């Protein structure tokens, strides 16, 4: 058991992406919940709070930033990192200005991600 075990939410419509990232966190001893759409992510947050979340931006229907804003409405202190495969600067800026912790560009540098967890 990791003494600093965290509850992490990984949100990505690409299931392989979500799983591989989740498995890395699990390997590090954290508890990971997977969500594959914005709606699922919101539902997950409704059920419980997470220590940290990694949210893809480009998702069908509700994108990551919109979902983040909705989550923030009932969990104002939610700590969320945005992930994106290409620069959607406007959305990224909105998210950062409204409390997102940061943006990770795909392919994600995993050393950096793990260091974020340690912080």
């Amino acid at each position, binding site marked *: 058991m990791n003494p600093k075990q965290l509850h992490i939410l990984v949100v990505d419509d690409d299931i*392989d992406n979500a799983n591989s990232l989740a498995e890395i966190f699990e390997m590090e001893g954290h508890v990971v919940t997977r969500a594959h759409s914005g709606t699922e992510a919101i539902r997950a947050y409704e059920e419980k709070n997470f220590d940290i979340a990694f949210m893809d931006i480009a998702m069908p229907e509700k994108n990551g930033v919109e979902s983040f804003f909705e989550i923030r409405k009932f969990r104002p202190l939610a700590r969320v990192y945005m992930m994106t495969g290409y620069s959607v600067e406007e959305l990224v800026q909105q998210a950062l200005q409204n409390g997102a912790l940061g943006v990770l560009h795909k*392919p994600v540098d995993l050393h950096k991600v793990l260091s974020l967890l340690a912080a």
Partner: protein
Amino acid sequence: MILSAGEAKAPAPNSHSRVHFVYFVLASFDILVVLAGLLLSSHFANVFEKTIEYRQGWDKIFTQMWKIGDLVMDTGSPVVRMFESTDWAAESRHFEESLKRLSTDVQSLQEQLIASGKAEEAQDALAALHVVQNKLKLVTEHGRSAFSQYRDGLVEKAAHCMSMTQRYSQELKHQFQGAMASILLLTRNYENQQLGHVRDLRRYELLIAFCVLFMVAGVTTYGLHIGRLIRQKHHQAAEAVARLQAVNADVTRLNQVLAVNVKRLQDAQEENIRKGKLAQLGQLTATVAHEIRNPLNTIRTATYLIERKLNAAAPELKAQFERVSKAIMRCDSIMNELLDFTRTRALQVERVEVDTWLKEVVKEQAQKLPAMVKVEFRPGLSGIEARFDPARMYRVVVNFLTNASEAMVGRGDDPSKFTTDRPKIIIATNRGPGGVEISCTDNGPGIAEENLKKIREPLFTTKSFGVGLGLPAIDKILEEHRGELRIETKLGEGTKMTAWIPLEVDKREAA
């Protein structure tokens, strides 16, 4: 097209025919005056000739009259001398002879006057001569009776007859002198008449002189006027030519402007087409990038997972994992290159303190370069802020560093491809004219002349890897900022690339 130059004024029509007309009039006048002069001189000559002829006509008559005058003086004297003379008969003969000569001469004078056709004008003289004849008869009568009385010894009667003879002789002299005077008066009158005629002609002479003066003045004045007119015309013609030349120059200039504008229009059209294509390409690239980065992300995380799990069990796989990791990063950098070049969205301009921002970028990017490449940052803007899109300018700096580094050591894994012993990159900032400059200087091999133009063209590359969009992307980003890229290079010494951007980016671009 607008022609600014005014129309050239047309010269007054018929001016030539007017000049001709005036000269024709002057010449006609000239000829008239000359003719008048000739006429006048012929008149003078005529008068002179007539006067002389007239005088000559009277000359003979005068000579005769002088002769008769002499005879008239002593018609009575033989009668007087008879009383003192011893030979009265001789005196009587003398008396008869002289009377006879006188009578003949007077008669001949009368005939001459009539014959010369001067009878009418000399009628006074003729009348006088007629009286002279009568008196001559009386003198003859009384003289003869005086001589006969004296012969008969009647001295007293002879003396009486002598005094009668003397008296008539005196009267005869008077009459003759009257006739002479009348003829003299006649010639005097004629001469006076001719003199009056000459005086009249003199007046014409004066008139002609005035006309000549007037004509000379007219010709001179008109000549001056024509001269001025010609000079004016000449001036006007020169002006018209100058104006024509100006219009020509204008047209030429406008044509050039037109050509330039047409070229610009063509360029703009091509640019629009290019932009349209780029927008499409940008959309496509963005989609592809997203679609590829997701599986790339999966590969990366999965590889990481495998690496972590196998790490202790199979250390010989470490190199393989590194290769996978590098391949993933290459795919990523290709995506970035494509996105840099094809992106068409508007700039997101921010006010950025250049040195501080750039220091972070350089520090972050320097770590990604091969370890042997030394990177130095030389800030020179001391807190100056500029307005630009940091995300886009970030790509410029990344491309600068990547290009310089790859030119010197390739990807850093194959020493046979190294071109530089101590690869070093200096990133510096400076105040440029009206803007700021970010320069990247390397000590690499430099760029060959023939490649210098091509490196700005898309898809040109001297490397065995890469898409060839690095410099075109820099060009494009700087162009969007209304800035420019300058390249200075020297073979064997290195290359300096300078990005200049204005302090204020145009708001249209920022919108």
